[in-house]
């Protein structure tokens, strides 16, 4: 059974259909890129997959649970246990150091473990910046802290929203390399992006347009 199944979901805001009858399945360990122009419904889809929103219509089955039927508390629990979120704007807590930002996710999941948090930062190449505040880190470094935070609780899905949107090319490559490493380790990755370079390194890519899936294709060059 697929890790994530979206069955004919729609998200309607008044007159606007942000998502229109979208169906999608994501397998365990798959690296999926969701692409499309602005207003195509990428962020709405990400919010629904990330359990931060519910569809107006349809079913979203994540690891056997229908999130459309979950309460707010249930969605919070799913986010905490199964999903790692990476944001374009990083969203680090600006009064906590890099390692403390990673530990925040541990704190709300189980117990903070500074050693494990430091290892997560080491994995993204930031061990030496652990005690720095976000304001003392570059954009690329902040994004890597955000990735370390997303990975610290070993989520079943890592969901990244425009992860390279605010990064220069060098940092973009670093982030892509981390994603490759995560994929090789069997992590399920869903990356929402409008950047073709990021989309094309994924194993599979769907393109949204006006809330509908316009293209769904497997990358023939993946892994080469």
């Amino acid at each position, binding site marked *: 059974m697929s890790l994530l199944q979206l069955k004919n979901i729609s998200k309607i805001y008044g007159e606007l259909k942000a998502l229109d009858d979208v169906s999608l399945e994501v397998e365990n360990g798959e690296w999926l890129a969701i692409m499309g122009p602005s207003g195509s419904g990428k962020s709405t889809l990400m919010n629904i997959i*990330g359990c931060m*929103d519910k569809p107006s219509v349809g079913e979203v089955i994540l690891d056997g649970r229908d999130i459309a039927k979950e309460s707010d508390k249930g969605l919070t629990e799913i*986010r905490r246990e199964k999903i790692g979120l990476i944001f374009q704007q990083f*969203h680090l*807590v600006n009064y906590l150091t890099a390692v403390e930002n990673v530990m*925040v996710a541990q704190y709300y999941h189980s117990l903070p473990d500074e050693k494990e948090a430091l290892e997560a930062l080491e994995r993204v190449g930031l061990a030496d910046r652990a005690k720095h505040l976000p304001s003392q880190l570059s954009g690329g470094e902040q994004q890597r802290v955000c990735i370390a935070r997303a990975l610290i609780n070993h989520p079943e899905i890592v969901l990244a929203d425009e992860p390279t949107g605010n990064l220069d090319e060098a940092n973009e490559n670093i982030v892509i390399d981390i994603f490759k490493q995560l994929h090789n380790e069997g992590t399920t990755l869903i990356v929402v992006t409008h950047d073709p370079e990021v989309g094309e390194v994924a194993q599979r890519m769907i393109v949204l347009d006006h809330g509908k899936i316009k293209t769904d294709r497997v990358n023939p060059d993946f892994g080469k």
Partner: protein
Amino acid sequence: MFFRMIKGAFTRQWKKMMMIALTVALGSSLATAMINVMMDVGDKVNQELKTYGANITVVPKSSSVVNSLYEIEGADTQAYLLESELGNIKTIFWAFNIVDFAPFIDTKAELGGEQIRLVGTWFDHHLELPTGETLNTGVQNLRTWWDITEGEWLSERTWDKDTDPVMVGEALAKRMSLHSGDTVTLSTLSGNKDFVVAGIYSSGDEADDEMFAPMDTVQLLSDKDGYLSSIEVSALTTPDNELAIKAAKDPGSLTISQYETWYCTAYCSSICYQIQEVITDSVASPVRQVADSEGAILEKTHLLMLLITILSLVGSALGITNLVTASVMERSNEIGLLKAIGATNGAISALVLSEIMLTGIVGAAVGYFAGFGFAQIIGQTVFGSSIEMKLFVIPIVAVLVIAVVLVGSLPAIRMLLSLRPAEVLHGR
């Protein structure tokens, strides 16, 4: 981690937290000041009213019955109290609440063809109590409103023993053209007697037409050595409540526990009752005007202070509401992120409330001491004395501050609960 986050929030938002602490401090300082004054004001008002004279009069039982029947004040019913029992007043259960007392005996005398009332009393009498204590008491302390227009207060202890002193009321002195230092001859039942005018007073009441002389002199003139016609007592009392009113009518109607409560509380009626126990065949009764004034003033003062306390706390709660709501709005991204990574509403509410509570505790502590200072200013300005620090005010203020902080934070917490991570993180 929890404390690191709280510490971080304090460091980052110190200005806002300081404003919240200041708002709480303002409310708690006013609450502390008002509650402290409110708790102390009973004694202060009592002391203040004591300057307006005695609040208990003691008369012989038969005289009291006649007075009650015919509503005659000062009727000569040929009944007397014993001077030897006077010291017993300071041996009752509420002895320490007896501030002053003075005995009275009066006789008729004639001066310049006019019949006048000559009153014998203690002026500044030195009394050796049966308990071994000593006490200086008399009308000098009881009639503080008397204005000495000529001469000085008669002092029994320093007056020349070769002459008999007298104090003359202003109206009488004017009619008889008397001045301080003059010698007057009074015709009494025991014959003529010369007195030296020690001072002339203005009392503003019927005493302006009377003369006051030392107790023993008048007792000799009226042939009532060792007897008194009345005693005036100034006592610190607790305002009457239902129990006191019931007991005043008939102490026998009380249950044993009610009786013990009443007897061991400084109600005017229980002090009267205890005085009657130690003065033979006496009736002690409150001077209703003073007792009622005390009750009415206290009630109104309490109400006013309660209103000020409530208003100050409501003001604080509104201030906290604004500040905490602004803080939550400013931190909506952070709160959204915490929710996105799995923090429950309860966990975030606990975090925000802990920050506000800690800030509130600091504010309350500062406010408590500032409030105590305010209380002293009120005490000195209004009552001319300090306000006693009452420890039980601390838990009361603590509970009020917690309630105010919680109520003040409610709108912000509601807002926090309604924040959706998708909306704040993606601006949707």
